[in-house]
């Protein structure tokens, strides 16, 4: 087995959820102006793709940065299980922030970082549609 080299492991998850972009700090008209169709009162949904990139040393015993099954379990429990087939606006984390995909990306980064069993969370990309995506990168701070 070769000595540990740093590599990256990427995994894509899908979650379908609804949301409405609306903030109480703007008037009804200002909300419509800012968010357009996304401000429609009954919300709408997306098939989000969440791409997780984990960096770390390749374990010489397993050949892995992170075991796929362990990563799937963590992301399944803390992200997919929590948001898939749900209304994002009703989740407590969006009580005080608009569930834009920017904010969703930041929320998911934090949740996955806390749940990550091994390695360092390098990047979370959230694709809202095939034509737009948002990325959140970890700080330079190293994790164990």
């Amino acid at each position, binding site marked *: 087995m070769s000595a540990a080299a740093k*590599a990256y492991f990427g995994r894509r998850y899908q979650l379908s959820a609804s949301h409405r972009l609306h903030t109480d700090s703007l008037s009804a008209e200002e909300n419509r102006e800012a968010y357009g169709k996304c401000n429609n009162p009954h919300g709408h949904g997306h098939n989000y793709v969440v791409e997780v990139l984990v960096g770390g040393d*390749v374990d010489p015993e*397993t050949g892995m940065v992170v075991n796929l099954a362990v990563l799937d379990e963590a992301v399944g429990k803390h992200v997919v299980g929590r948001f898939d087939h749900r209304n994002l606006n009703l989740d407590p984390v969006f009580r005080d922030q608009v569930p834009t995909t920017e904010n969703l990306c930041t929320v998911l980064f934090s949740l996955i970082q806390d749940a990550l069993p091994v390695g360092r969370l390098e990047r979370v990309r959230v694709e809202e549609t095939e034509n737009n995506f948002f990325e959140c990168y970890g700080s330079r701070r190293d994790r164990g």
Partner: protein
Amino acid sequence: MIFLTRRATFSASHYYWNELWPAEKNQHVFGRCANRNGHGHNYTLEVTVAGEPDAVTGFVVDLKWLKEVMEREVLAAYDHRHLNLEVEEFAAGKLIPTTENIAISAWKRLQPSIDAAGGAHLSRVRVYETPEIFAEYRGGQ
């Protein structure tokens, strides 16, 4: 600096097994991937090189040349092969052909030819095992 990426696909079989572990531990850690009859994937190899465009051609590298290097150094060895049994770096339990190790091994196969050509340098190798699972290596430790 421009980053240029070329994709290629190869199909191969593999299984995960650490010869130093008892069978039970292999099955526990690697799950279905530990089936010693192997299984297969359609892999996608993504090779990114970085450099400045040539003043005359406007190329960082000639894509046709990069394609040939990928075919000669990686696909000729990996495509339609059983990685554990037929590929030197993985054979006889030397290295488990995880996606991470395939990315690192492909890098090692590609780097000498790309370095020898001068100009652009190898920046990243990404290997997709499925459209939802990939590993990448950026060199170094």
